[in-house]
């Protein structure tokens, strides 16, 4: 306990403790390793800029070339369609997997087993080449007869094959993500819904899935970023996304490396933008789970600037 008299006497001194000005510990190891990294990076950049073979001028020329820009758009479109398919199929499969009907649950398991157990590239080729078989077998496909192409190299065929190949495959991965999300929801929630008389599917839709979102959203962002790159596989079925567009150009001009660089720059740009979006999405869905969110880079910079300014003033 404080002696009152002393407390009053000490009050001014205590209200403003002296700021600590200590000599920081030196870390020579950090300086050495940092220097090595810098030297290697500088060499790489030097090689990159001075290398005549890379033809950076060509890269600059094609970066905003019309057909490349169209390829970028097509890549984004394919990513969006495949992900939407994946999410819808994933939700359906996850709900099926948790069904009490063993045949329904088994069907979901079989789907995931098949699509995760075979390479996407094989699946893409499979869907692309299916029409030739389908026509000779005259298989009734739900998309209708007009879907069966006169010419297998039709754009629409490649697009549908790409969507099927990537979307159906993604559905298998999304199913596991959605299932994990559903299982993360407290059992008491389903119990409360059941006790109110809500049927299983209704409580799944209204009570469980909305709460599962917090667990589902972050890995779905990762899947989207990964899908953006995976769309380049559709080049093997001559679908004109970004990579295939670049390939068409360099098969004509033989500027292979510059065009691959051009495509890479665009892929890097798009994945970076998605990563930033992903960061903010995760923050948003962490709400309610974390008491205090870590600061965003923007907030961090502003805080740092404010701190500097404060120091400069004193």
């Amino acid at each position: 306990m404080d002696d009152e008299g002393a407390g009053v006497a000490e009050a001014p001194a205590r209200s403003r403790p002296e700021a600590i000005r200590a000599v920081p510990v030196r870390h020579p190891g950090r300086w050495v390793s940092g220097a090595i990294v810098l030297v290697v990076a500088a060499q790489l950049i030097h090689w990159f800029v001075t290398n005549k073979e890379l033809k950076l001028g060509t890269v600059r020329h094609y970066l905003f070339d019309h057909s490349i820009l169209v390829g970028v758009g097509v890549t984004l479109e394919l990513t969006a369609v495949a992900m939407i398919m994946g999410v819808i199929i994933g939700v359906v499969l996850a709900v099926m997997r948790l069904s009490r009907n063993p045949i329904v649950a088994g069907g979901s398991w079989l789907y995931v087993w098949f699509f995760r157990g075979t390479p996407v590239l094989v699946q893409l080729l499979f869907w692309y080449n299916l029409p030739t078989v389908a026509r000779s077998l005259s298989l009734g496909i739900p998309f209708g007869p007009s879907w069966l192409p006169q010419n297998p190299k039709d754009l629409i065929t490649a697009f549908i094959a790409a969507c099927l190949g990537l979307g159906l495959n993604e559905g298998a991965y999304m199913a596991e993500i959605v299932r994990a999300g559903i299982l993360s929801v407290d059992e008491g929630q389903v119990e409360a819904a059941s006790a109110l008389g809500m049927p299983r599917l209704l409580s799944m839709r209204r009570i469980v899935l909305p709460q599962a979102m917090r667990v589902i959203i972050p890995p779905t962002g990762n899947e989207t970023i990964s899908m953006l790159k995976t769309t380049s596989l559709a080049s093997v079925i001559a679908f004109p996304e970004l990579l295939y567009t670049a390939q068409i150009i360099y098969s004509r001009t033989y500027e292979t490396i510059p065009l691959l660089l051009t495509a890479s720059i665009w892929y890097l740009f798009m994945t970076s933008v998605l990563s930033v979006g992903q960061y903010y999405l995760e923050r948003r869905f962490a709400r309610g789970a974390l008491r205090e969110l870590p600061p965003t880079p923007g907030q961090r910079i502003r805080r740092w600037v404010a701190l500097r300014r404060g120091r400069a003033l004193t």
Partner: protein
Amino acid sequence: MSEPTEAQAAVRPMVHSEGVEKWFGRLQVLQGIDLQVKPREVFCIIGPSGSGKSTFLRCINHLEKVDAGRLTVDGQLVGYQERGGRLHELPDKEVCRRREEIGMVFQRFNLFPHMTALGNVMEAPLRLKDENKAAVRERATALLRRVGLSDKLNVYPTQLSGGQQQRVAIARALAMQPKLMLFDEPTSALDPELVGEVLEVMRGLAEDGMTMIVVTHEMGFAREVGDALVFMDQGQVVETGSPRDVISDPQHERTRSFLSKVL
């Protein structure tokens, strides 16, 4: 089956349990429960942890399946129907419909965290009853006012105290206009100073004539509000009677030793 006469209907118990048994694998959790809950009665269940109180409550709205014996709610067999002298399992739809008439309140509230207090109360009637939204909203608002939360309509559960959450949960159950309310230790997860406000709401419900089965450790509430009380131990009803008698003058050794620990 003959129609019950007027006299029989008047005394028909709300819940009638005859020799109800429940097994979890090789563990027998209920070993022949016999009891009757009359309409408008507040029926309290006490007993040590693991004695099967929650399991019995969950049998009443068919969250658990009864393995043997006969359990009826308002004269209707729970989970089954009798046709041609045989029992047939009820279809899910019918099970859900019957649950609508039985409200349940949980120890851990189990409010829907992504909905406001009003949203929690409106959700089930909005989806399950043939009423328009305005009518449901009006009833939900009235119910929240009744449990003393008219200023918390648009607040999410995490922003409410435990006592307030439990009162929302009671309003949520009442929104389906049940004829029977089941309470499973509704105040056990609450800080002591919040217990009173929840018990007060339950007392009001009892005064309005709601039939209630209450699993509780609140002996004061059982004594003052309860009409009947059973002491359960190891899946059996050990002792039953009026709350005053059982609490002040227990007849069985097991009841005595349990009461000496909780009082």
